[in-house]
């Protein structure tokens, strides 16, 4: 594999977009709700990632056992992924032709 | 079992494919339980009742084992029969005519 292609794939592998709505408080539940809603929107477009539901489940587990810090961290990660998958879905809808090398 | 035997210039090449799971005893099922070992240990073949092949094999043989060997003296139309036994004592056999 030549270097250009290696770089190309590394670039592809790095998340191209990153944003997460800012939640001022440290309340996990609304973040989780947001993550779920966003993920379901992405899933409805067939763009769910394999990793996101597990993050939500892990956040809920951590919350249930009272590990609030861990739960918050996981919930934010889940929301971040859900948002990215939805952005990916919307981007694909509008720009899928750009994915063609032809 | 499937057997293909072909003679060419007095050399008969025999290929076999045996339907067998060849469980190594090291795999785990979905619940994490070890799947018990079950694998073919010996395979033998005869041509006109004369032995022409014998193999001892272990867990390292792939699922649905494939083996091939060659012998001299076979004629088109002759029967080649193959038998195997596995680690549970179960056996199987197959037969094919040389082409």
């Amino acid at each position, binding site marked *: 594999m030549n270097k250009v292609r290696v770089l190309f794939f590394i670039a*592809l592998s790095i998340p191209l977009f990153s944003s997460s709505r800012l939640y001022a408080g440290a309340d996990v539940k609304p973040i989780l709700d947001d993550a779920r809603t966003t993920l379901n929107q992405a899933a409805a477009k067939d*763009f769910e990632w394999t990793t996101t539901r597990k993050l939500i489940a892990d956040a809920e587990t951590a919350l249930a056992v009272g590990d609030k810090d861990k739960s918050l961290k996981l919930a934010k990660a889940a929301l971040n992924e859900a948002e990215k998958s939805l952005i990916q879905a919307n981007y694909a809808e509008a720009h*899928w032709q750009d994915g063609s090398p032809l | 079992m*499937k057997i293909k035997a072909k003679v060419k210039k007095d050399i008969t090449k025999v290929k076999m*494919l045996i339907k067998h799971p060849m469980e190594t005893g090291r795999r785990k099922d979905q619940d994490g339980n070890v799947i018990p070992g079950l694998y073919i240990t010996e395979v033998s073949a005869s041509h006109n009742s004369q032995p022409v092949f014998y193999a001892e094999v272990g867990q390292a043989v792939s699922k*649905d084992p*494939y083996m091939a060997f060659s012998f001299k003296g076979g004629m088109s139309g002759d029967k080649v029969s193959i038998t195997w036994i596995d680690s549970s004592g179960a056996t199987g056999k197959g037969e094919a005519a040389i082409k």
Partner: protein
Amino acid sequence: MGLIKLILKIKAGLILAGLLALSCMANGETGSKSGLDFKAMVQQDVRDFQAYYKKRFSQVEFSKYKNGVYAIDAASREQWLEMEDFPPYEFAIDDGEALFQTPFANGKSYADCFANGGESIRQNYPYFDSKKVEVITLELAINNCREANGEKPLAYKKGALAMLSAYMASTSAGNIFAVSVPDEAAYQAYSEGKQFFYSKRGQLNFSCADCHMRVAGQKLRADISSPALGHPTGFPVYRAKWGEMGTLHHRYAGCNKNIRAKPLPAQGRAYRNLEYFQSVMSQGLEVNGPSSRK
């Protein structure tokens, strides 16, 4: 233009088949309501798609793309040929034939559901059913046949269905894929499949085209990526990784998992449309299923 050049270099039989397909499509009815000449658009897509591989792998004969990654990688081809010499799917063909011959409870059989008694027809799948307004794959047709005769549908990824599909493919070996896009609704399904193919998805943000066009023939981790041209032709496959037969949609699901995209349902609309697009792109290649894969 690319396709014309390409065709000149391939075998005589394929020339005829290819030109026939082209002329049939070009001369067919084009009276679409929107005025779009979708048949010409599809043919342009096919030409561009096949020309892309011709340019990338100039040494590879067009007809060899039916062999998947083994068309373009000599080292793995050698091992594959060893497997194909006495392939493990031979059991599946026998089992599939036995299933195919077994009548349903109502006395009818699979042969009653298909043209030509179900023999030598793999190359016509998938096709677009203009009445049902959906893509019908061979596997879906098999289950539709079962349900029409009061039998329960089979699971879509492996097992009995894969064996039936393997048997039916085996009776069609060497036939040329002739999947067409007959009308505007079909063009819609085709376009959805095409969109799926070029859309990046999953946590790794890869599209089918990323791995199977741009990097086809090169290593993705430890594996050499196969060309998308010819993808559907060898299915179903006995995959060493599975240790059994599996369908194309089983493979799609695995591919999606690899890029960390949640797999979509086998025989759901998305995968059927993807198979449709891929089969149209692979027109002119031979039916080569079942086959073995790593």
